[in-house]
Every structure is written in structure tokens, then in C-alpha cells.
């Protein structure tokens, strides 16, 4: 066996050990992720949307300050976005209640 062959053997063994340890060590069985829960997904989505709508309000105010939008358009859009944000917050709160309840039930079980 040459030095190069020996090094190749060492490389193969190292790789086998690296990928094999997680498979053969006695790790407690755990799931990578919980099954997709549509309520939780909707909740996450709403949180992101809420941020976007709040950012949109800030941007709208900036556009108004820099004269890009007229007073009536600003009022109408501001009203619309505020309504959108309120709607999102209500939905988020409702979902939070639902999820907390679910968590409690799961905890009790």
C-alpha cells in the first residue's frame, strides 16, 4: 500500500464516520419538523403581512411628505392600510388565542 493509497483510505473512513455517527449513535428519536398546521402557517403569514402593511404605512407617509401623493389619495390609502392592519391584528389575536388554547390542551395531555 502506497502513502497515497493510505491517505485515500483515511479519507474514506473519515467520511464514513462523519456521516455514520448521527445514524448509528443512540439519539433520542426526534422529528425534524412538526406536521404542517394550516393555522400556524396562517399565523406566521399574517405576522409577516402585518409587518409589510406597517412598513407600507410608513412608506406612504414618507411619499406624502416628499410630495408624491395627493392629500385625497393619501387619506384614502392611509385609511385602507389602517383598515388592513386592524384586520390583520384582529386575525392575529384570534389565531393567538386559538393556538394558546391548543398549547394548553397539549400541555395538559
Amino acid at each position, binding site marked *: 500500500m502506497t502513502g497515497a493509497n493510505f491517505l485515500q483510505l483515511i479519507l474514506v473512513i473519515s467520511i464514513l464516520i462523519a456521516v455514520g455517527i448521527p445514524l448509528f449513535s443512540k439519539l433520542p428519536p426526534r422529528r425534524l419538523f412538526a406536521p404542517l398546521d394550516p393555522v400556524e402557517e396562517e399565523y406566521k403569514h399574517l405576522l409577516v403581512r402585518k409587518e409589510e402593511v406597517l412598513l407600507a404605512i410608513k412608506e406612504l407617509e414618507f411619499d406624502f411628505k416628499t410630495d*408624491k401623493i395627493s392629500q385625497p389619495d393619501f387619506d384614502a390609502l392611509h385609511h385602507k392600510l389602517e383598515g388592513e392592519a386592524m384586520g390583520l391584528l384582529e386575525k392575529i389575536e384570534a389565531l393567538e388565542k386559538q393556538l394558546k388554547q391548543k398549547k394548553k390542551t397539549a400541555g395538559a395531555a
Partner: protein
Amino acid sequence: MNDIGEFALLLALATAIYGVVSYVMAFRSNRVDVYMSADKTPIIVWACIMVSSVALWKAFLTNDFSLQYVAAYSNIDLDVFYKFSSFWGGQKGSLLFWTLILTTYMMVVHVQNRKQNVRLVPIALAVMMVITLFFLVLLNFSTNPFERLPVPPPDGRGLNPLLQNYWMVIHPPTLYLGYVGFTVPFAFAVAALLTKNLDDGWIRLTRKWTLVSWFFLCMGNLFGAQWAYVELGWGGYWAWDPVENAAFMPLIVATAYLHSVMIQEKKDMMKVWNMSLVLLTFVMTIFGTFITRSGLIQSVHTFDEATLGYYFLGFLGVIVAFSVTMILLRLQLLKSKNELDSFLSREASFLLNNLVLLGIAFSTFWGTIFPIVSEAFRGVKITVGPPFYNQVNVPIGMVLLALIGIGPVIAWRRSSWSNLKKNFTKPILAAVIGAAILFPFVPLTDKSEIFTYITFILCIFVMTSMLIEFQKGTGARMEAHGESPVGALSGMVWKNKSRYGGYIVHLGVVLIFAGIAGSQSYSTNVEKHLKEGDRFELRGYDITFEKLLWIKSNDTKERVVAQLGIERDGERIFVGYPEKEFYKGQKQPISEVDLRSTLKEDLYMILADFKGDNLVTKDDGKTGYFKDASVTVKVYVMPMVKWMWTGGWVIAFGTMIAVWPDRLEARRRTERLKRQEAIFLPAQE
């Protein structure tokens, strides 16, 4: 070391196969242990490719001509600098280099997402691993850079002299960083499609990857243009060559994506469009690679052994079929519920910008593949030249330029005519004044000059609208926060990095437009046969041929250099040294141009030919001059070329601002995650 390098390629292949299988299994079986095992593979594959790359670099640096690739692209006298870059000088090494960048990116994605985004990342990494696998199959079974020669030659053939230029050391890696970078958004897009996680999570994860890849591709194109300008000696920088087009198309599609994705982030709409654009960008990068490596289309840039066409064609076919199928299957999930508030809005201007950009991409694509199409249908290969591209892309490009100025002035969601009138008055006024000032100075004798004049006017319009944007924003901030002008300006840019970084990028693009227009329309050139002491005049420059020098750089390279004295208004301002380089084993000499570059114009000098029989050498035997020599020189005066390169640096600066980590965004994300953690069950990701 060569054995180890070659063996590491095989190991990388085996590990990549295991990586694909184990990532998919981990996702499907939802097992952490399998995922943890799979998660070792990106690092192992990267390490193996690194070992192979180091082995190949070592072979170049130690002149190991037992490797066919080293013997073909290097020689003993080659500068160390170029020995290093010979690595990607040919097909085999460039594929290994591509794989090195790809696996490095894959490892970064792996590290960035360790223990998070586990619904997307395993599949995204599996997709990246499949792409790596494709390149590893090529490297192992078709273009192995460690292929041995039965009898090693005493010296190598050397690197193509045209590639012995510092731009050629920088240009390919920059271009590859861009090309390969688009694999990341593609992989996440595919993962989102496969796992049905079609909200904008994957977009947020890959936003900076897309921007950075776009930046590298943009700079790669500019560096390539600079190489062509200083090295090819034809007085130009862009020839609409198929390989140039191949790098240009993904850049254009990615630009469209970078704009339209903002609409998805803001309004949760255009998901199908954005998904299609990100997939198309990656398809275009593979198409570009196919063109360079298939030998199907003639270009100065294609590799000598361009034999990989069928592999890339097959791979391209699979990607296109898979992408189209996945989008069709997920069409229902990708439908958005929101609509545009108004057609008079920034969103609408972005849509128009997308159509314009795709128009440019399509015309370039059509011109590039036309020789293949014409040969297939009519049996004759008809090559499409620059006039076609200029005729189609110049007017579309002017619309795009106008949109760069229009977009920022329009408000998001809705604008009104009265506001538009108010906001466009100053930029239009500036453009009209600019047009009047320029009118007496610019010739308007043909269509090209008229287009150039309009481009200049548009550039003034865009610049003014951008500057007003900065001025208005600063003013609003000064009023709101009582800050000084400098504090308000820097605070405004810092708080809105992506917006103002983007505007700065646009300023760079305007400079490039102006540079292209000026240099294309107002260049002039003359070819002169001169004896020692002869002089001629070109656009105010008095050029004198003073002497013809001879320099022996080393055993393989000799240079013949014309010394040109340049005077302006009787004052000596520059000495130009255009030259011919003679390399051992090369039949044709290489022209090296010399430049005097200013923001106003470039004086570009080429030594086309020379006659010098009486060589007088100095004592060192390495330098000398020709007695009674004569030369033929070609001299160009090209206005505004430097504006293009300056535009590139402005783009770099703007991109740096746009990708700089945003504390506010990070804080929002942390707060969101905290809120989620407080609500979700402990088992959740």
C-alpha cells in the same frame, strides 16, 4: 497529490449522491438523525473539491506537465500570477472552478440555515447537491482535469497570450460568482414549489443571495468588457458575441426579478411571475454555459475542447421541463388574492420595466440562437451581428432608461396626475435645458447620433429625478428630526438601505448608458503609416512616432514597442507605448494597446504593424531599439468610455449599501420569532 486530487473528485461524487438521497429521505421520513447525517455532506463535498482544486493549483505552480491540462495551459516561464489563473483558462479547470464556487455557496447556505428553516433547507440543499452532482459527473467521467499524459513534455504549451491580462484573472471568477450564485435562489424556489411552502419565506431567505449574484454578474460583464477593450485591440468593448450575450441575458432577467419581487413582498402578489423569473434566470445561466461549452455557436470566447454540448443540453432540458411542470402543478397555490391599487403607481412602472427587460432578454436570446435556428430550418448558418442587436435593443434600452427616472418619482400603490405633474416638472425642465445646451455641440446627422442625443437628454432627466429624490427625502427628514443636511442625508440612506442603495445603483447604470452612448457615436479613428519623427493630428492631439523599442521579457516573450509622443496645444501630455508581443510557439503576435484615459475621452493606440531591420541592442541583451524604423498605428479617440467603468464602481457602492445588514429588519425578525415561540408548541421549528 494528483492521485489525491483525482480521488477527491470521486469521493465528492459519492458523497453528493449520498447527500441527495439522505436530504430527501430526511425530509420525507421527518427524521432528525438522517438530517444530521445528510447535513455533513455539504462540508465534505466542499472539502473534497477544495482538495482537488489545491492539487490542480499545485500542479500548475510546480510545472507538473504530466497532467494534460497543465501541459496545455501553462509553461515554465509563465508568471506565477497567470499560473494561478490558468486554473480556469480551459474547459476542465473552469468546470472544477465552477464546482468549487458552487460547493462553497452550498456550504454557506448550510451554515446560514443550521437548525432553521428545516421545511425548505433540506430540499434546497438537495437541489444544490443535484446540480453539483451534474458537474461532478462531468469532472469524473468526461473532463477530468487530472488526466495524465503517457509521456510528460519538458515544457507546456502555455496560456493563450490573450488571457495573460489582469482583467482575465479577475473577470472569470467574478462572472462565475454571479452565474453560480443564482443556483441558490433557484434551489430555494424549487424547494418552495416541491414542499408547497409558497409564501414569500423563500424570497426573504434568498433576497441577498440574488442581489449579490446580480452584482457579481454585472461586474463580471463590465470586467469582461474592459478586458476586450484593452486586450483585443479592436477599439471596442462589446460585440454582441454569443458568449457575451450568454452572460448578459441572466443579468437582464435577474434585474427584472429584483424589481418585481418587491411587489410580491409589499403586496403579496405576482407569485407566478416571480417564480418564473427566478427559474428563468437559472435556466439562462445554464444556457450560457451550454453556449460556451457546446461548440455549437462560434465565438472567440468558447473553449477549444467544446464537446459538452449534449450534457448541458440534456441538463437544460430537464431543468426547463421540471420548472414548467412544477409551476403548472402549483398554479392554484401561487395565485394571489391582491390586485394593483392603480395603474398610476410604482408597481405598474415596475411591471412595465419587467416587460422592457424581458424584451431585451428575448431579442438577445433570439439573435444568439438564430444561427442554430436558421441552420436547422434552412440549412444555412446565418450569424446575427451587432446591427441587429443595436437596432432592437437601443430603443428598448432608452425606454428602460426613462423608466429608471420615472419609477422613483411615482408613489407606491397610487399616484395622481397632479402629483406627477408637480414631480416631473423639474426633471423635465432640466432635460429640456440640457437638450438646448447640448444641441450646438452634438452632431445629429444620422439615426445613431439622434439616439445618442436622446440618451443624453434621458440621462439628465434620470439624474435630476434621482437627485431630487435625495434632496426631498433629506428635506423631509430634516423637518421631522431637526437634523443637519449631512446628518439627514446619511440617516435617510442608512435607515432605507435597500431603497437608496438601489437609487445609487441606478445612478451607476445611468453613467454606463451615457458612456455607451458617447463612446459609440462620437468615436473617431485614423490609421497612419509613420517613419521616425513623423507626426499627425487627431481631434486636437499631436501624435509623433519617436522610436521603435525592443524588449526581451523572458525566453518565451519578446516585445516590440512603438513610442508615441502626445502633445496638446504644444505641450507634451503623454507618451504612448502600444506594442506587439511575440510568444514562443505562437504564430501570430498579440497587440497590446496603450491608453490615455480621462473622463472626457480615451486616446486609444494600437501598433498595427512595424518595419525595423536594424536592431541595436544594449549591453544587457534584453533591450534595444530599431534604427530607421517605420510603423503603422491605429489611433482612436473615444469619448466617455471611463464613464462606464466609473458607473461600475458606483453600482458596487450602491449594492454594498443595499446588502448591508439591516438592524431594523433583524430586530423585526427577532420579535416575530419570539412571538411565534411564545405561541407554538415546543415541537415546532
